[in-house]
């Protein structure tokens, strides 16, 4: 055994933890941050079908993007979808959690039932709802068969209403998860406080409104962040349910990015839209992560 070998052994032993971590760190730097920079650069070039690194045009693609009608439609749709999706999922989730918190005998079964759509792919959800809402053979026909002859439900093929079918399917998939988040929050509340309030003669409704719901502010924040994040990224559900149509009635930023990059040969504009999506999500996620990790460290 020479000294040199022992020195190498010591060096290895000392650096082993960081060596073990390094492949993951290298992958993250390359696949996350390197790729973000690459896409940012592509967004400032005149790339069409393929990346074209030599043709730098500054921020022209961004100007073009904001003037593109499809992008404006996509943003309008994201606003409609996103706000309804977040509000309905949040309220429904809270409502169901409060109901389930009333010492329900079949709570386990109901909880499982409300949450199972979360285990499905958005493609499966989209396929199921596309069939369920099929204007010819779906819900409409069933209602007619049950005797409600005048019932009409053609939202899937109605450009004015199609975006709301995406909301319905999205709420169906995610609201159970929001319910589970609120239920966990409710179970964490000190029951002594509730007993005291009830002894003071507060009704159940008052107890919830004045004492319980204000204590759930952290859950509201988490639910908002999770839902906003999922809403901005939503691609699969739109593809499976409406394909962005009819026409461009359900175009969203995620479908816009995909079609401009890969099928319309406007890769520069597509990259610019991806950058806008990233910045929107970062504006929500970064302050949240910062606050969450700081809280933990102060404990």
């Amino acid at each position, binding site marked *: 055994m020479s000294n040199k070998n022992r020195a190498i052994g010591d060096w290895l*032993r000392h650096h*082993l*933890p960081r060596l*073990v*971590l390094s492949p*993951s760190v290298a*992958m*993250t730097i390359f*696949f*996350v941050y390197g790729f*973000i920079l*690459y*896409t940012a650069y592509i967004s400032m070039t005149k790339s069409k079908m393929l*990346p074209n690194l030599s043709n730098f045009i500054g921020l022209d693609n961004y100007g073009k993007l904001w003037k593109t009608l499809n992008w404006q439609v996509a943003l309008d749709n994201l606003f409609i979808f996103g706000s309804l999706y977040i509000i309905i999922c949040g309220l429904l989730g809270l409502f169901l959690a409060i*109901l389930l918190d009333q010492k329900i005998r079949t709570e386990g079964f109901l909880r499982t*039932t409300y*949450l*199972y759509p979360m*285990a*499905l*792919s*958005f*493609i*499966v959800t989209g*396929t*199921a709802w*596309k*069939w*369920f809402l099929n204007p010819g*053979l*779906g*819900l409409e026909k*069933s209602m007619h*068969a049950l005797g409600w002859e005048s019932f009409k439900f053609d939202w899937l093929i109605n450009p004015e209403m199609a975006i709301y079918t995406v909301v319905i399917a999205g709420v*169906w998939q995610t609201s*159970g998860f929001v319910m589970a*988040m609120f239920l966990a929050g409710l179970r964490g509340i000190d029951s002594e406080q509730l007993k005291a309030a009830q002894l003071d003669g507060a009704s159940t409704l008052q107890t919830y409104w004045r004492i319980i719901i204000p204590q759930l502010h952290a859950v509201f924040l*988490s639910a908002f*962040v*999770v839902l906003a*994040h999922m809403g*901005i*990224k939503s691609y*699969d559900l739109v*593809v*499976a349910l409406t394909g962005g149509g009819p026409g461009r009635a359900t175009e969203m*930023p*995620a479908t816009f*990015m*995909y079609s401009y*990059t*890969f099928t319309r040969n406007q890769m520069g504009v597509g990259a610019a*839209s*991806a950058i806008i*999506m990233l910045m929107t999500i970062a504006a929500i*996620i970064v302050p949240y*992560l910062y606050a*969450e*990790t700081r*809280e933990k460290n102060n404990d």
Partner: protein
Amino acid sequence: MTDTLQANGVSSARFWRVALYTTLIVFAVFYLLPLYVMLTTSFKSLAEIRQGNMLALPADWTIEPWLQAWGKACVGLTCEGINSYFWNSIKMVVPAVVITTVLGALNGYVLTKWRFTGHKWVFALMLFGCFIPFQIVLIPMSQVLGKLGIAGDTAGLVLVHTAYGIGFSTLFFRNYYEAFPSELVKAAMIDGAGFFGIFWRILLPSSGPIIVVTVIWLFTNIWNDFLFGASFAAGEGAPMTVALNNLVNSSTGVKEYNVHMAAAIIAALPTLLVYIVAGRYFVRGLMAGSVKG
């Protein structure tokens, strides 16, 4: 007087109780109805679907749509059913989940028990990576997969899912090991145990729950992914979700709704099974992925 008051109180309490259960059941129906309709549709003939009521049980039960979906339905240009795509998904999910879980466990171990200056920054970098919209990586990733010669291949998807799964698996294990007593680790160090020895003999034996949570979370997410599959493996190597979408949204021929529903249930079955068998761990994973830190 007091008797009637009390009786009123009791009957009003009973009224609220009935209203409560009714509401809960109505919502259970809302969540179950699409699944019920998928199931009944998948056991009906196309003729019965055209004539009958979507909500009715099949008059003539048939498993033909399931056989069609599995072995004969046309996905793209080939008409051999979805079974090969189902196996594609398995070939993609299993290695990706194993690699990502192992790396996440080791990362979590280093980031909690072998800390170095800047460990927080490393974790923050990986954490932010979990939440990027994946649209941001599609263009460079298609270039890289092309250069490596694994575009359109399951191997390419394994790489992609590993690269973007590590952040979450590291997060799960880091938070779990954070609560693991460091005294045990220090005592083992004094006894002369090495880096891997400590991990293998002290941390791993008590990591059961977090391994289950991580594996379920990764399995569900990777199995259900559509964006990466559609971007990087659209042909023969496509995963199940992409094949399902191609089957349902192909514009040629008669729409075989019963076959579509059978295929959709087959695509949903693995994750549904996991949810039914290990729902508790599934929910814990969801929570851990949303309430971070």
